[in-house]
């Protein structure tokens, strides 16, 4: 009995650090893709709103594809397709590209709605004061629109943060993947899933609080 070999070892402090590092990777890929995706999505949303023919015909359907095809399928397809067209992307880079485009597609529609919510009369009032198109956009449409879409945008951001777990299928060791590795070793799925959930909560909760305080400030 004394010589029994154990294949499993229990969950320890080192594993918490391992998961914290994985949580950092989740945060990294989410923050970068949400940031870049929001900027691109903002430009796309503006193009959709302005409704130039090319934007409506080309951009609309492309964004619809990103919104409609399940993210996991997009990730696997792109990861395998990228090398064929000459891009040697690792799991992180592939995941980043897809999450960014996915964010951009969601944000584009939110932004289009936000610009529309400002309304023609308000914009005419701005133009009647002598503002040019860009001044109207920068000083009137942007600040009013941002307040209108902020809650929707926070929803998109939180969604992408959680959906980033899907990048694990490409082998990127983020929070979910790390949990799976530890579960295999420790055979303690409940505990580890609970810890992973706590990490996701710790990442998301500050965003909700932060946005709630913003909205309170604006609503006065």
């Amino acid at each position, binding site marked *: 009995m004394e010589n029994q070999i154990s294949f499993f070892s229990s969950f320890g402090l080192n594993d918490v650090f391992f998961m914290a590092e994985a949580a950092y990777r989740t945060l990294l890929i989410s923050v970068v893709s949400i940031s870049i995706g929001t900027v691109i999505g903002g430009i796309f949303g503006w193009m959709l709103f302005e409704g130039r023919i090319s934007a409506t015909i080309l951009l609309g359907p492309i964004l619809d594809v990103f919104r409609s095809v399940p993210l996991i399928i997009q990730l696997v397809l792109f990861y395998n397709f990228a090398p064929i067209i000459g891009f040697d992307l690792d799991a992180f880079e592939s995941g980043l590209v897809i999450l960014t485009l996915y964010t951009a597609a969601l944000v584009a529609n939110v932004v289009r709605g936000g610009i529309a919510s400002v309304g023609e009369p308000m914009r*005419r009032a701005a133009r*009647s004061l002598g503002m040019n198109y860009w001044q109207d956009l920068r000083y009137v449409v942007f600040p009013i629109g941002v307040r209108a879409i902020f809650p929707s945008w926070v929803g998109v951001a939180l969604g992408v943060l959680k959906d980033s777990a899907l990048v694990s299928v490409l082998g990127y060791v983020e929070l979910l993947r790390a949990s799976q590795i530890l579960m295999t070793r420790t055979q303690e799925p409940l505990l580890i899933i609970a810890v992973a959930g706590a990490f996701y909560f710790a990442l998301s909760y500050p965003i909700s609080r932060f946005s709630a305080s913003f909205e309170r400030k604006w609503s006065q």
Partner: protein
Amino acid sequence: MIQIDNLQKYFGQLHVLRGIDLQVKKGEVLSVIGASGSGKSTLLYCINGLEQIQGGTITVDGVEVHDKGTDLNKLRQSMGMVFQQWNSFPHLTAIENVALAPKIVKKKSKSEAIEIAKKQLVHVGLEEKLNVYPSELSGGQQQRLAIARALAMDPQYMLFDEATSALDPELVGEVLETMRLLAEEGMTMICVTHEMGFARDVSDRVAFFNDGVIEEIDTAENIFENPKSELTQKFLSKVR
């Protein structure tokens, strides 16, 4: 001077303005009355270049509004416009609302713009509301804020598009009072209005619009006491 010659305006198939000829001299107050849908508001939008026109010309101080070479952003600075829906910027306080355009369009320094804004808010009687957001102002106060905002650009002309028709009845008076004050100060004004009392007391001339044409234009006294056109008589008998 605003000079309009044979102005034609279509919305798709709809012929909204059918040959308008009109002159408004410096210092004059012109009221435009008529039924809804007769093209009164559209006329103001055309003068300000917010609407394209399909025929004729509009000239403001010698500059043709719809000429391709015209810098509309510059021209609009000489024409303040006040809308039926006051459209105050909800994210800015009263003083910021008024200071915004002087700052970014006229490139005034921040302190200069604030100074101008304060002066105009005092002008319209909002000196106690400088740092208040529009959501905390009544409709009448928001409309006066819109007037101050337009005045801050130091315009030569003021265009009022039914400035009081979206207001609760008890708030109409304060806005009309502000408009009356401007008229007394010698501002050149075109007021599209349903307030017959205002049109009669304040305007030098009154134009009666019917179905896209000026049916009759004359001094306020003649229009109200002695209208020549049957349509004018009919309209006035209905609104009185």
